[in-house]
């Protein structure tokens, strides 16, 4: 089976800043990959390149076997249209650090928006599925609440349900708990943990090292736009080889 994500020598610049400096990685189906690293190391940028919220300027990324953002024609790569990119994005679901729930829609409407508008599903069916998802994240009673009426943890759980409603093959989490009050982190991690055990392929950027150790099959440490070290969580988080990884883990744990 083809890997879910293949990145080959990916580069991304913001002006003179080299945010991604040759990232290469393969993520097989069903893997839960955690990315850790200091602030500004390019973790978010890499996730955003995978679902094409940023355009890469070197290398290539394949998601579910499809070359992201380009079509190959002979020896040249032609950029895809907005519409084709939107279709490619259906393969992945994204959960943002700041939730980004649609502020003018209720929890339920947030979840059915994609299925109804993009996937053209009948509304009644979308509502049934959305209610099942709300049940799964423990928020069935909040179906008619607007995002501004929900706590951070509840908003993030609705955001996860919204992403799942599109039936993605890959879930991308960008520091899903770092905007939350400490007592709300647990409820969100519980939902992600549940998802991990269900066999979903996931890439999770996180500072929760305990969580990374518990759910991930592999941990990647990034710094300055490069992958410094990768391996099973017991090795990277407990016996890192690189000094930079050790320093980072020590700093997070202190």
């Amino acid at each position: 089976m083809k890997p879910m994500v293949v990145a080959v020598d990916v580069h991304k610049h913001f002006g003179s800043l080299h945010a991604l400096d040759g990232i290469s990685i393969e993520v097989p189906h069903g893997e839960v990959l955690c990315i850790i690293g200091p602030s500004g190391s390019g973790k978010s940028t890499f996730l955003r390149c995978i679902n094409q919220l940023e355009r890469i300027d070197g290398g290539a990324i394949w998601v579910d076997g499809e070359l992201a953002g380009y079509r190959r024609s002979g020896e040249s790569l032609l950029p895809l249209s907005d519409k084709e990119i939107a279709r490619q994005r259906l393969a992945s679901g994204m959960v943002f650090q700041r939730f980004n729930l649609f502020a003018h829609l209720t929890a339920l409407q947030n979840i059915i928006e994609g299925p109804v508008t993009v996937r053209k599903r009948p509304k009644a069916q979308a509502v049934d599925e959305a209610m099942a998802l709300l049940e799964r994240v423990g928020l069935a009673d909040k179906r008619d609440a607007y995002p501004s009426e929900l706590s951070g943890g509840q908003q993030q759980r609705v955001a996860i349900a919204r992403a799942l409603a599109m039936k993605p093959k890959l879930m991308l989490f960008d520091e899903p708990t770092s905007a939350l009050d400490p007592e709300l982190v647990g409820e969100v991690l519980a939902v992600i943990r549940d998802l991990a055990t269900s066999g979903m392929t996931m890439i999770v950027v996180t500072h929760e090292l305990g969580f990374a150790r518990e759910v991930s099959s592999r941990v990647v440490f990034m710094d300055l736009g490069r992958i410094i070290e990768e391996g099973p969580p017991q090795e990277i988080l407990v016996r890192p080889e690189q000094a930079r990884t050790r320093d980072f883990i020590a700093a997070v744990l202190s």
Partner: protein
Amino acid sequence: MDVKVATAGTDDAAHTSPYSIAHLRHVPQRHYGRWLAATLILLAFAAIVKAFAEGQIAWSVVAQFFTVPAILTGLANTVLMTVCAMLLGILLGVLFAVMVMSPNPVLKAVSVFYIWFFRGTPLILQLLIWFNLALVFPTIGIPGLFEARTVDVMTPFVATFLGLGINQGAYTAEVVRASILSVDAGQTEAAKSIGMTRLTALRRIVLPQAMRVIIPPVGNEVISMVKLTSIASVIQYSEILRNAQTIYYANARVIELLIVAAIWYLVVVTVLTIGQHFLEKHFSKGHGERSAQRATAPAAGGA
């Protein structure tokens, strides 16, 4: 400081302490200035009312002409033009705002030019150009499809409609653009992440939220538009002011007919202001409602 606090803490010194003031009486502040201002204003108001009551205004004439057909037709034309021109203005405003923000440089240049041109020339000049378009283009049409004499097409209604609507569009475009920028970029990213194209995200997610910011300024512009339609009298569009003038040219009741028109303008503007209030409420979903629900929540809990 420490010494004084210590004194206040001593029980038997309660009445001598500078901090024991509970026995003192609160006297409401006296607003002499307000009373003076109110008296002066009331006097001035009474004088104005008296002047109008005793002045050369035949109020019976005002009443008599308030609902004559010419005035009511004028009123209908004013309202019709306000609605049509404003709809065209909003349509063009959204279109050009989206074009200004488009990554396509041609679309962007066209809309920058549009906004520059129509904001940069007086409205009355634009109306005169539309109305006199026949001088430049004797016939207009789409070759092969239809063709007509420009004077037949450019009626006062059409010229006013185009003049006011297109001019309004240039202003509304700026309002819409600002309101789109006011919506957090994260909303668009979330919309894209569930597979929406740029335009679908704009239509389904960004514009509905931008409405909250658009409505107050556009509400103001609708109210301006009601009154702006009166300048169309220069190209013979029979809105309410022009019809009032036509009547007073014949019967010389100038002030009475101007008062009739003024009252009708105030009626229309009042109705619109109430409508704007309800629109604002509708589009503040997810924002304004929060405080409303918060306010009622304790009551519900107590019941």
